[in-house]
């Protein structure tokens, strides 16, 4: 991502992204809009499902028989449909470009939004939140709605990027290309969902502190700064922050604001949930990282080139390795562990999207995905050295 988004994120862009019947769409473009449309329907169903949970909770409180939530299976079905249609979209793009569609930035981002759907589907069954309790079911619903909305947002952003096809340069024509990309993007998606859980938790904690107190002013300010000032907060944390504030404010008005004792178990469970999401993602992150090394070894007999993207991915991996060690050996639980996990998600974001702005990224091998960047023929080491060496030979 060498340049900021060129288009606008206005209403037009949104309508464009959910309108599959417009003129002149490629088939992958049309299917992408179907994905968005299904996600929109799924998000609406999910929101409805979330609202109906309250009556279920009320029924439990009042000792009445709990009715099944009628929107539960339709919203799960919407998620499933989005995954199926997303696969069709990826397949169509494959047919349009005749290779695994992850070469340009727009292809990679669409792949990541698709992975987000796949990992949500997997986590939906792996986490089994609704079996824990109705409060946790709400949390699962919220996650589903956030992911579906996030997919629409990401796809909206994709439409500001060029969708031009590019031929695969020789180095990318390797059997490692699909697994390397797919493992990394899947792990990014899953770890992003883990990060999302931590964001929900920290927003909840902040607003509970505001409405109920119990936290020091310093920690509240620090939290506020982290939530609002991180790069790209407007698409990552601020919407959740505002939404949670509004919901808790409403609860406070109606006198249903949970008590302070509520936070301790919430912390424990959310931390456990985020850990499970992490556990699904970390093996893929590891495999993706090292598959890149296997590939580089085959291409240049160099398993690690200290390329800036490799370094950034390694730092991300190390943050997660630190997390697992702090959690298992250092006894980190609850908000301390979740803070590290959130740092990991931030690192994923930097590696994946902010990377193009980093000082050392200009000469990176992994800038293939930019528009207008044609990799030079010298693909390893300093090109100037090679040129000079060649000049010497010619002399």
């Amino acid at each position, binding site marked *: 991502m060498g340049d900021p988004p060129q*288009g606008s994120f206005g209403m037009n862009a949104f309508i464009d992204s959910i309108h599959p019947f417009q*003129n*002149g*769409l490629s088939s992958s473009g049309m299917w992408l809009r179907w994905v968005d449309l299904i996600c929109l329907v799924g998000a609406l169903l999910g929101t409805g499902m979330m609202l109906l949970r309250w009556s279920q909770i009320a029924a*439990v409180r009042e000792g009445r028989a709990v009715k099944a939530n009628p929107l539960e299976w339709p919203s799960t079905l919407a998620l499933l449909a989005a995954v199926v249609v997303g696969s069709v979209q990826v397949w169509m793009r494959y047919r349009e470009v*005749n290779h695994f569609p992850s070469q340009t930035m727009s292809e990679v981002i669409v792949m990541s939004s698709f992975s987000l759907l796949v990992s949500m589907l997997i986590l939906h069954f*792996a986490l089994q939140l609704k079996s*824990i*309790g109705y*409060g946790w079911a709400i949390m699962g619903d919220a996650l589903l709605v956030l992911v579906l909305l996030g997919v629409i947002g990401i796809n909206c952003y994709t439409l500001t*990027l*060029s*969708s*031009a096809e590019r*031929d695969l*340069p*020789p*180095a990318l*024509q*390797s059997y490692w290309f699909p697994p390397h990309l797919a493992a990394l993007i899947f792990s990014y998606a899953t770890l992003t969902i883990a990060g999302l859980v931590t964001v929900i938790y920290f927003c909840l904690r902040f607003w509970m502190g505001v409405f109920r107190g119990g936290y020091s002013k310093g920690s509240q300010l620090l939290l506020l700064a982290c939530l609002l000032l991180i*790069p790209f907060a407007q698409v990552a944390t601020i919407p959740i922050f505002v939404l949670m504030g509004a919901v808790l404010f409403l609860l406070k008005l109606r006198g249903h604001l949970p008590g302070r004792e*509520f936070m301790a*178990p*919430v912390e*424990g*469970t959310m931390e*456990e949930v985020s850990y*499970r999401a992490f*556990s699904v993602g*970390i*093996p893929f992150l590891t495999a993706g990282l*090292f598959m890149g*090394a*296997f*590939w580089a*070894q*085959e*291409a*240049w*007999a*160099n*398993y*690690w080139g*200290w390329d800036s993207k490799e370094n950034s991915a390694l730092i991300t991996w190390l943050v997660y390795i630190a997390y697992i060690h702090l959690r298992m050996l250092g006894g980190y639980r609850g908000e301390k562990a979740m803070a590290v996990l959130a740092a990991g998600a931030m690192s994923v974001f930097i590696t994946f999207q902010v990377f193009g*702005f*980093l*000082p*050392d990224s*200009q000469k990176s091998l992994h800038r293939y995905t930019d*528009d*207008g960047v044609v990799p030079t*023929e*010298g693909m*390893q080491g*300093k090109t100037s*050295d*090679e040129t*000079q*060496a*060649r000049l010497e030979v010619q002399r």
Partner: protein
Amino acid sequence: MNLVAEEVDYHIFKDQGYQKLPASMQDEFQQYEAFRWAEGYFIYHLMHLYGIGMPKAPLPPRVSAGLERFGEKYGREEEKNRRKQMTAVFTGREKLNEIGAFIHDHEDELWRAFQVATVLDLNRTYKSSWFATLLGLLGVSVFLSAYRGWRFETRRSARALVWAVWVVVFLLCLRGFGALSLPWAPDMLGLMAAFFVGTWILGSGVPKKRVSLQKAGFFIVHNGLLVLLIGGATSKFTTERGILNLDSRDPTPKDVYYRFFDVHKKARLPFGVSLDRFGRKDWLALQVDFPNEEFTSRPPRYTLWPGRTIELDQVRDESGAERADLRIEVLEVYDHAEVGLVKVHESSDPDAEPLALAELLLDRGGQRSRFLLLPMEGDRARLQAEVLRDPGNAWRLAAANGSDPESHFPKARPGRERIGTIEWSIVGVGDGQPTAIPVVLGETVELGGGYSLTFRQATTDFRTGKDDDKESHHPLPLEKQPLGFAALWVDVQGPDGAEPERRVLFETIDDVQFGRQRGFFYSDVVLRFAYDYWSAPGPPRYVLHWEEHGKGELVMPDGSRVPTSDGQVLPLPGDAEVTVSQLLERADFESNLSFHNSEPDENGWNRAFYEPAHRGVVLRVTRHPGTPEEESQRVELATSQAGNANLWFSPDREVVLQFVENSEMMPFEWRSVLTLWDRDGAGGWKKVALGSEREREIRVNDYLYFRGYRFFQTNADPQVPTYSGIGVVYDPGIPIVLIGMYAIILGGAIAFLVRPAVKGWGTPPKGASA
């Protein structure tokens, strides 16, 4: 580091650029230039989060309007992409200026930061000693924590050994069945077996109650990490990397290569390498032009593969929906195309543009060749295709269609014949546009501005080394000379009255383009010569005249006429026999291509990759698809310009397809074939038997391994097609590191994926409440 001296150099650099610095400092300042740009770029973006305050450069309205029409022809998606790309270019240029200004304003701070980064080795942290130390410490602490409380237990270790043997047997069986075909499989397999045996035995000594999946995962991961660090250290202390520059024209083995990051030090291989072959294949692409549109944007190129469908030329139907009016389907793609002579036949379309053409077969002593003769207009042959001349110089033949054949015989008396035409232009004389004048030998022509030309001599058979730029030394008179390279000697007289300049002009050579013009005395006088093969002196003239398909007459020099028709031999003098093959009124051309694909042999070797060949494609072009006017046509194209085999024009000339090998982007593939040589002890080389060419072939992502060295395809130069840059790596750490990485992946999967799948997540999270 002498900081004072550096400060001085820095000021020189700041004011005059690094080229003014002593050579020893140039490298560092070049690095600084890269550093300040990278940091400036980063800080600039940090200060303009979300693009706030960045320059906006909207597309000029003219560009925008052009793109709208472009989108109608090439599709909305292409239009949007162009718009995005052009906006990025317009905005990007402004932004880069701002970054440049930012760097300029903060030059001193950036220079300080560069010095700090240099002192701390931040620029290449991974090469620094402190980073290596850190990794060493990591290894030690991983070892200590993984083997905390370890002690040797005979029974446990014996049991572990038995298990380990089973694993090794299993791996060997896999290999026996050919299920594992890793590169250098024996090494890798041995190392992998050693790794698991070691892990198993060592793991048995760690006090834990029982063997669990989690414990196995933990042990495999941590031992994997230790192995990885050992491999990394091996690499760090033993690796040699560089580039070997080979050229397939030079068969002598090379053993000197250039080390990366250390250009001045050459390194030597313990053996020699030479390049047998080098090949590059580009992507096949189709460029679709709409010549009536005159777009300023370059038309897109579509990469071709069998089964691809390209839909273009959007039109709106009654409902307002757009549909493509042109569909191109790729039916077949070939890596070899032979381009034969163009086939001609009478068009089946009665509305086709009239195009008269005579196809003639000339047989001289059993050698047959085909000629296509275009009818002349007037008595001047502008094109060589308008006159067929007897190789034995007994006759020349022109064609006439739709005109009186008599009118084509020149009326000039002998000695006053027109030799050809000259187009002249003189800078500052007249309107500067070229003016055509007839050339008659001996005549002088005033050009204006005081210049004049005198035509001295001509030849149709310029002989290099015998004729010179002053005169022709041809032994035969002009009319008896064979047809070769036509030339004309002229005197250019300038307004200054000086001695005239003698110039020789060649047909088909443009003096300006070939750089001859600058060498002329009157270099402002530009002359272009075209020989007239009909009106110039030569053998007797005959005219083949026809007004309907297949039936015509031969008009003799004396005006008498002999009827002729398709298949008849013309009554011409001399020993060559000319047969009328076809007399056409509305000629239609058809390219004459034959295609085939070269298949690699069973080892994957494809010699054809290295042979220069035209490539072919078969398309189905459909106009107005899905409407009653739908019309499909099979189109064969080759990447050869011979006979325009690479072009296809639609009958209405609204669409032009151009088939190209897209050499502007990265190629489809590069390959090299190497030969390795040992020194024979007597100062010479002897070949190392390394097997077939496929076994000695390297491709991108497929290297050659020999005596610890790995050779991979890394560089090429489109300007020097025989050059191949071969990456050289000596790194014994590679298999060790790979074992470590495989182990970490495996261990991680066991701990995080297999365990929960087998045992579930354990107890549900506590505190389930609402």
